[in-house]
């Protein structure tokens, strides 16, 4: 069945057929109607690749016994928060070693002003963060945390203090599925953000507009609105936000009324000429902040549209045409407003919609570098050292994966600017910015390495175990089924039968024509798993098979 038949069959008369235009990318007309189509491997993998870092075989199997509604609900209700990062580093070279923290214990409650220690803790934090993605629980939380990290973008190199850094990301994680307005307030008063956008230096004698501007332009309203906030509004909001300070020793924010501008703040007609009454006293800063956020969120169309579009581009696709605007963005924005800025109903409605599962919205996201690196590990089930018993080895491996993503232009916790990664905002290319003449060969080199030699350090190796992966597929003895089942996990777009046949014949059958040659080789290995030659025979072919699949352009799509 070709795509149009598929779409027509499923939607019948409730949707207009796509216009026949060979010169234009096909468009989708589906909206937020709850998806009622099949929920099989295809749909589960689509859902998992978008909401988690890859579709692991375990998770696919798990959700096969769930309905789509159940699956999305489970993904949206994660269990407890993860344990904090631990001391994986030695203290060589530190002027003041953090001797109070035992190796393997967490450092997040121990203040250190030693530059060496801080540097190693920032590294520890980054390894830990990648490790959380690799070992994520069966939920959307890590993907949402990355979404907010990209949205409220900060740079670890600027924040500098590792405890503040940890606190900032923990805030994003803890509130990732909570209330957006509350999240904005938390971020505003977060020491990491105060540090990153100079809020802690913002005082009545020297107002700093940095956070005030980004609060409106990047975090809530966006800059595409017409009319929009004015430069005077930026200055007025900066004055509202004066007086906030950071106590690094306690990793906390406090309010210094002496630094606060107690005069009234006049806003433009965009904000209905609102005047925020100047206050003084210990709660003045907090009260004025609430006024400011109430004023901003009163521009509820702008805020809801801005955030919903960003969510849409994170989970669906970057192109928002008039139809998608009318059938998806507008109703989601309304829902966002009606839910008083609760995030979960918006995500839930989107993920459960016809639109999300529309064939035209599948496979069209180009994996980010972190996704390429982490998804590979999770989907092949790459075995990492245990984070509790072999934490140094585990962190070493997380560091390798982190460095790979950085090499591909995405440095976790250090986005290029407060705008986040350009792939999520830069018209017109968006995700395509991840792929260029430098990064694409590097992506291939990474996947080649992981399937060939792997990475070895301190006697431990992380590597794709191709035989172990194939063994977990339903019927690896049949080369056709093996390829189909492998691609069902690894790819989101079809590979033609002709291409599959070429791959099967050339790789799995070593140029032979009968499928049983592979079957016999596989069964010979199963019958005698310790026989090195039988193992080698299947290992070589599976290695070449998966290497080939990962080298094709199709592998870059999710």
């Amino acid at each position, binding site marked *: 069945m070709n*795509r149009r038949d598929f779409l027509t069959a499923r939607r019948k008369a409730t949707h207009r057929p796509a216009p026949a235009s*060979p010169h*234009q*990318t*096909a468009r989708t007309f589906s909206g937020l109607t709850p998806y009622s189509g099949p929920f099989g491997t295809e749909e589960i993998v689509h859902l998992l690749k978008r909401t988690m870092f890859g579709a692991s075989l375990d998770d696919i199997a798990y959700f096969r016994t769930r309905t789509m509604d159940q699956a999305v609900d489970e993904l949206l209700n994660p269990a407890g928060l993860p344990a904090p990062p631990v001391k994986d580093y030695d203290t060589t070279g530190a002027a003041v070693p953090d001797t109070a923290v035992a190796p393997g214990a967490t450092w997040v409650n121990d203040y250190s002003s030693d530059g060496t220690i801080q540097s190693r803790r920032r590294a520890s934090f980054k390894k830990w963060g990648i490790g959380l993605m690799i070992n994520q629980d069966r939920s959307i939380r890590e993907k949402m945390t990355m979404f907010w990290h990209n949205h409220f973008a900060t740079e670890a190199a600027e924040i500098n203090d590792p405890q503040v850094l940890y606190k900032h990301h923990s805030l994003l994680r803890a509130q990732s599925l909570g209330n957006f307005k509350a999240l904005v307030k938390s971020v505003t008063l977060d020491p990491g953000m105060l540090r990153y956008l100079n809020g802690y230096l913002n005082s009545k004698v020297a107002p700093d507009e940095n956070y005030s501007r980004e609060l409106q332009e990047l975090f809530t309203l966006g800059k595409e609105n017409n009319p929009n906030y004015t430069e005077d509004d930026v200055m007025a909001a900066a004055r509202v936000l004066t007086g906030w300070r950071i106590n690094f020793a306690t990793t906390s924010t406090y309010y210094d009324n002496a630094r606060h501008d107690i005069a009234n703040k006049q806003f433009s007609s965009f904000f209905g000429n609102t005047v925020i009454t100047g206050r003084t006293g210990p709660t003045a800063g907090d009260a004025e902040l609430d006024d400011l956020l109430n004023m901003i969120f009163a521009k509820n169309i702008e805020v809801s549209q801005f955030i919903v579009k960003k969510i849409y581009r994170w989970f669906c*696709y970057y*192109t928002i045409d008039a139809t998608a605007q009318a059938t998806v963005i507008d109703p989601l924005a309304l829902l966002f407003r009606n839910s008083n800025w609760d995030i979960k109903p918006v995500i839930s409605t989107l993920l459960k919609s016809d639109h999300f599962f529309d064939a*035209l*919205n*599948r*496979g*069209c*996201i*180009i994996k980010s570098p972190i996704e390429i690196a982490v998804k590979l590990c999770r989907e092949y089930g790459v075995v990492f050292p245990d984070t509790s018993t072999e934490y140094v080895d585990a962190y070493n491996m997380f560091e390798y994966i982190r460095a790979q993503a950085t090499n591909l232009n995405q440095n976790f916790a250090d986005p290029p600017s407060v705008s986040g990664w350009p792939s999520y905002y830069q018209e017109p290319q968006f*995700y*395509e910015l991840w*792929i*260029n*003449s*430098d990064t*694409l*060969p590097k992506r291939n*080199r990474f996947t*080649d390495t992981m399937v*060939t*030699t792997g990475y070895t350090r301190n006697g431990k190796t992380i590597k794709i175990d191709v035989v172990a992966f194939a063994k977990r597929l339903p019927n690896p003895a049949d080369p056709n089924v093996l390829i189909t089942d492998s691609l069902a996990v690894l790819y*989101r*777009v079809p590979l033609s039968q002709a291409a599959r046949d*070429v*791959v099967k*014949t*050339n*790789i799995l059958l*070593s*140029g*032979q*024509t009968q499928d049983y*040659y592979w079957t*016999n*080789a596989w069964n010979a290995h199963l019958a005698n798993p310790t026989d*090195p*030659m039988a*193992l*080698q*025979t299947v*290992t*070589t*072919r599976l290695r*070449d098979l998966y290497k*080939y699949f990962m080298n094709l*352009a*199709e592998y*870059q*799509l999710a």
Partner: protein
Amino acid sequence: MKRRDFLRNTIPATILPVIVGGLSVKAYGAESPLVQALMGTTTDTDKVLVLIQLNGGNDGLNMVIPIDIYGNYYNARQNIAIPQNRVLTLNGNDKTGLHPSMTGLQTLYNEGKLAVIQAVGYPSPNFSHFRATDIWMSASDSNKVVNTGWAGRYLGVEYPNFPNGYPNAAVPDPLAIQIGSITSLALQGPSVNMGMSITDPTNFYNLIDGVIDPAPDTPWGKELKYIRLVAQQTQQYAQVIKNAAAAVPTQGAYPSGNDLAAQLKVVARLIKGGLKTRVYMVSTGGFDTHSAQTDTADTTIGNHANLLARVSNAIKAFMDDVKALGVEDRVIGMTFSEFGRRIKSNSSVGTDHGAAAPVFVFGKNVRSGVYGNNPAIAGTVSVNDNIPFQYDFRSIYASILSQWFCVKTTDLETIMFKNFQNIPLCVNGACSTTGLDDVYRNAGDQLIVNYPNPFVESTKITFKTSGGHTLVHIIDTLGRSIKTLADKEYAPGVYNVDFNSYGLPPGVYYARFQNGAIQQVRSMLKVR
């Protein structure tokens, strides 16, 4: 831009290593007489090896036919035997002939451009397509697991830094090119695969012409097109390959409907186009002829005849083309298949998986001739009887590496893991000669005998070595090496070893002698 111009234009005034014909020299700027001299001969002296893989296990006994024991040959496989009067004869050799469909190779032989190496195999042959293919690709012992390829190991020694910093001015081209979608185990180096694949001739031309496969007009199709576009633009060797292909607008005629010819045509074009690429791999399949190997009425036609014609016609067209293109001096090639087939044919008009089979090495600079003897075939053969190997396939690899690519002895051992017999197969004047010129074709010299024969339990084996590494071992009819009697350096002379067969069942055993380029197999019979 031609290679010569490329070198001239890109070599800076600073010192830059240039690798020419396997020799590493330091160039002191483009105006250096040394550099000029080297550049003047770069294209002409770069040697190329073309590996032709015949997938499925080629029936060597119907490809290279033992005329001198034709009766036993015929008895062993009456339903598929080639009639003696149809066997193609070879000039100056009345003992051995070719399948009637291989007129092209007959011509090459008679022109002195074809070496036929008899009974190529290895101890304890494996009859599984997969395992045997891996053994040929990896050049491993039968009972060893090696996950690198022999050519990949060679290129890994030559270019240890690959792929970091590649391509570069000194080595601008792919080290190895496989025509096909998959880069094979043979090109797998210690850490990375040393080759690049060009996806079949069709897609290869697509690459050259910059054509991209269609993707649907959907969001994912749009992204796929974009990624493919970047992939095409950034394929690090796309431009040099396009340039090489563009430099050769016309080529000789190749047979149509011949997949091997189509692949070899690409190879010839790239060689002429100036690529420095050392190793090309091509392959063709269908040799697994368990049944219907020949026409039932006429054994000279049918499936296997078509396969051999495909190979012969393709190689002949290729050789004619490289000659016309003026690059004949640079090219040799070899055919191989994962195994030969059984001596005795089956009742399905076919043959089952077997052991040793002949290998062709072709090229203007190949030492033409038939190496070794026709395989011994008993008057009565059983279904398990196999052709014992006379030449280890790794000896051919090693010989080509040392004689064609001038690989040093110590490197050779690194690549091949062991010291293999040196067979004087080809000539590259740039390589230092090792005194092997006239040691082959010791026809008539009896180099290994045993007494008594038949024997009951023990027999004395006498061999005559011309010095150096000498091997005498016993293999059974399944090709298994069951006892090694001599395996060390010897001074020239005559030596005796005893073969005690205690515990072995009665039957046929072969004593195999190997000394430098020479080897012989002595058939022995153990009786009660």
